[in-house]
């Protein structure tokens, strides 16, 4: 009750304060900064010129920008090199508030109730609650040729797709997409950041590099089982065959796999048929088969007993011990654990993706990269000086700064050869693997939600070292080089299917369900039933499986599934009608 009362009080205070605030938001600082200062204009010598419609950032006019961002990256060290650079060149100081992705939903709920925000809100909020809750300002006025020209170029071709209705019936752009807006030639394809049934490289090595194409669940678990029998402990700790996670915000690790195994791409909780009609699969046969199989594997002792009681942090630290042989997950979500193993030089304990499917199904794990919608930075209504913040983002979008974020500082973090190609020396590559070094020399937490220049720069170099083909191969450890050669593959991506063109509406997981709607309630109830029953179903004695499954299906029947499916289908139709077209 106390918490609740204080929440109400906070709201009340905020309401009164909002009422008392003067209408004008122009502060003196904002007016000062509109005068362009020389020196600063010289800074923007990247591939693109910055236009004059916005205040120019300069060290003579220091500004502080507060950033609230949901990211898996950790905060930069106090003596970070790029933090200093931002201060020296632009006079910008950043104050971070970093929210782990699994806490984002609750944080947003509390923030909205309070109504006070940081200047820049880095969001991965799928329910667009920051937008409908009135936390962000529309950016349309800034996104023009003569104001934030680089940001305008970033969103211009996709305007209709990005414009969102905050509830007032008008569509505006509130959030600048953070990933998969491509420029120039799309290079790379070396990395794979998405879904798969990951398997430890040493398991494959030990089995003599068996063919991993045409993978099935049976073969996947057979490999794991054989290895676990042979090596009951790894580094003195018991080997864990298969790891599952269903911590808050990451329930999809438990609920998403059946659609992949049945040969569908990631549409979240639904499968979409050839007539573009979506329906849930949680209670269907494809799901039953998968969970029944997990139940049997659990009976063999291959599933970690602590799977369902652990938090995301506990899961990641368990993965980082190198004793987990396999798990379903998306690469970006366990990146910290992967990096930790690389930093320790335990390359053989990292994982490679496989794509088990039911017989007769074609794997569709990898999709064409889709531009993230409503994920990235938006500017909050609490921001006193949106001009400055837009100017900051626009400056960051220049090729010069994009290179700094991705490649680093020329001469320190990368070199340029006689053909203008960027490369790194072995020492430079080695230091990039050190997590402490990275916290001192890179700004991953800030950059994660930043609009990015993906593809190739105007000088032909790839957006980052990982996508520069020659650099990618050179940066691999000997173990990984040998591993790839043994498989006759060149990149990690080669382990995945060749993605066909995405359907227009794809992906359904980012179709927004309005707050307080029946559909949203149904979706939440469906998730809750899954996290309550599926763990039980998997951990149960195989003889109880059928009984528990029947209970589970019965519970799902009580949910208003129709409301949920209708909302998703409406979203699909709306996208088919309106997507396409820019400005």
């Amino acid at each position, binding site marked *: 009750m*106390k918490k609740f009362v204080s929440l109400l*009080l906070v709201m009340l205070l905020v309401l009164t304060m909002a009422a008392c605030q003067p209408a004008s938001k122009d502060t003196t600082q904002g007016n000062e900064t509109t005068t362009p200062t020389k020196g600063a204009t010289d800074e923007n010598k990247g591939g693109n010129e910055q236009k004059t419609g916005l205040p120019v950032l300069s060290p003579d006019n220091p500004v502080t920008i507060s950033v609230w961002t949901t990211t898996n990256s950790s905060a930069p060290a106090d003596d970070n090199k790029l933090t200093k650079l931002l201060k020296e060149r632009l006079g910008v100081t950043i104050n971070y508030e970093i929210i782990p992705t699994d806490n984002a939903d609750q944080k947003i*709920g509390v923030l909205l109730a309070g109504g006070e925000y940081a200047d820049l809100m880095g969001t991965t909020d799928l329910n667009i609650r920051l937008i409908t809750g009135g936390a962000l300002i529309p950016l349309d006025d800034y996104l023009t040729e003569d104001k934030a020209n680089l940001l305008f170029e970033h969103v211009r071709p996709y305007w209709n797709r990005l414009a969102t209705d905050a509830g007032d019936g008008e569509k505006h752009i509130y959030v600048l997409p953070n990933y998969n807006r491509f420029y120039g030639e799309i290079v790379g394809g070396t990395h794979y950041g998405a879904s798969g049934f990951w398997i430890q490289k040493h398991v494959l090595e030990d089995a003599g590099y068996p063919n991993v194409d045409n993978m099935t669940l049976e073969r996947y678990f057979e490999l794991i089982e054989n290895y676990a029998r042979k090596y009951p402990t790894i580094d003195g700790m018991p080997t864990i065959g298969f790891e599952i996670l269903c911590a808050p915000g990451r329930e999809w690790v438990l609920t998403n796999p059946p659609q992949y195994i049945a040969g569908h791409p990631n549409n979240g909780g639904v499968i979409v048929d050839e007539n573009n009609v979506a329906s849930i699969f949680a209670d269907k046969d494809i799901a039953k088969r998968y969970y029944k199989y997990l139940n049997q594997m659990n009976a063999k002792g291959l599933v970690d007993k*602590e799977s369902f009681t652990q938090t995301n942090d506990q899961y990641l630290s368990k993965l980082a011990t190198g004793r987990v042989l396999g798990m379903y997950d998306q690469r970006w979500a366990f990146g910290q654990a992967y990096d930790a193993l690389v930093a320790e030089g335990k390359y053989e304990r990292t994982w490679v993706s496989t794509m088990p499917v039911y017989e007769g199904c074609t794997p569709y794990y990898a999709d064409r990269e889709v531009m993230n919608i409503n994920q990235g930075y938006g500017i909050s209504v609490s921001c006193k000086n949106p001009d400055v913040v837009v100017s900051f983002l626009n400056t960051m979008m220049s090729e010069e700064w994009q290179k700094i974020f991705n490649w680093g500082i020329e001469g320190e973090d990368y070199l340029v050869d006689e053909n203008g190609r960027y490369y790194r020396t072995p020492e430079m590559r080695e230091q990039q693997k050190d997590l402490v070094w990275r916290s001192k020399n890179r700004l991953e937490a800030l950059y994660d939600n930043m609009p990015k220049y993906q593809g190739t720069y105007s000088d032909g170099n790839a957006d980052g070292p990982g996508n520069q083909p020659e650099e990618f191969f050179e940066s691999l450890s000997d173990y990984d080089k040998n591993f790839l050669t043994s498989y006759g593959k060149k990149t990690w991506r080669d382990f995945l299917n060749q993605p066909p063109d995405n359907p227009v509406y794809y992906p359904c997981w980012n179709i927004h369900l309005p707050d307080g709607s029946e559909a949203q309630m149904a979706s939440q109830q469906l998730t809750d039933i899954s996290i309550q029953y599926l*763990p039980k179903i998997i951990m149960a004695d195989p003889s109880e499986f059928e009984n528990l499954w029947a209970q589970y299906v019965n519970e799902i029947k009580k*949910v208003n599934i129709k409301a949920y499916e209708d909302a998703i289908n409406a979203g699909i139709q709306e996208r088919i009608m309106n997507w396409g077209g820019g400005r």
Partner: protein
Amino acid sequence: MTTQPLAQPKKKKTVWHTIAAQKELIIMSVPLLLYKILFSYVPVVGWTMAFQNYKPAVRSFWKQEWVGFDNFVKLFVGLNGERFLRDLRNTLGQSFLTIVLGYIGSISLALLLNEVKNIKFKKVVQNITYMPHFLSWVIVAGLVSTMLAIPTSGGIINDVLIRLGLIKEPIMFLSEPKYFWWIVACSNLWKEMGWNTIIYLAAMTAIDPTLYEAAVIDGANRYQKMWHITLPGIKSTIVVLLIMNVGHILEAGFEIQYFLGNGLVVEMAEIIDIFVLRYGIQMGNYSLATAAGIFKTVVSIILISMANFIAGRLGEEKLV
């Protein structure tokens, strides 16, 4: 009867006299009163949210949509209703168990400490037992989850049980719903037992020593003295604390259920506060959260008045 007309004006006078005489006290209590009004009564205005379809984007109070008792209906009907009532049961159950264990634990510890004649030893025990009170629940939850894990993850309890030969396979304490209430109650006991003894020990010092002397002359032994003198001596303290605790019975904590709860045990673990967080605040359904909060307050007020009334009937101290 004849004195009454005379007494009337005199009585009036005394009220003003009292006020004048105590004006310093009254002035001193004004800030406290304002504090109470500001932080306990003014926020009640926010209860109106429960009758609206509250949207934070609409900053003006008057533009919100009024929906009557819709949110209360949503709270008690259908799947949500099942969940809410289940959570209500969990809240009451966990709270009840926590209070009972807490009382037995801290009163017995206080009785035992009271009998310790070696002052140094007594102080050491007291210090050790009340230290956990100062730990944050986040840390306690972390400790508990590690203690209860399987041995390879540092689960010392399973380790000890296996080594003693009491069990063969480690018990998955955190994935069995039936253990959850006990885990909450025992964690509370561990954390708060020492702290709660302080008030009982203070009450015990107020017991007249001559009673003990008389009991010794009558031939009472130590246990009889504890039972017939010490316990009755702190009875009123126990009752007052009990009434206060009944008022808080719907607050079974929040952190420990939040950190230790998971899908496997949710049916026994989820309490009202977590329901409010997940279905209210996390989903932007502030009105539903408010409705649940109002319900909680109303039940608390009813419970505390009942406890107060019963205590009065039993001839004990009442709070009000």
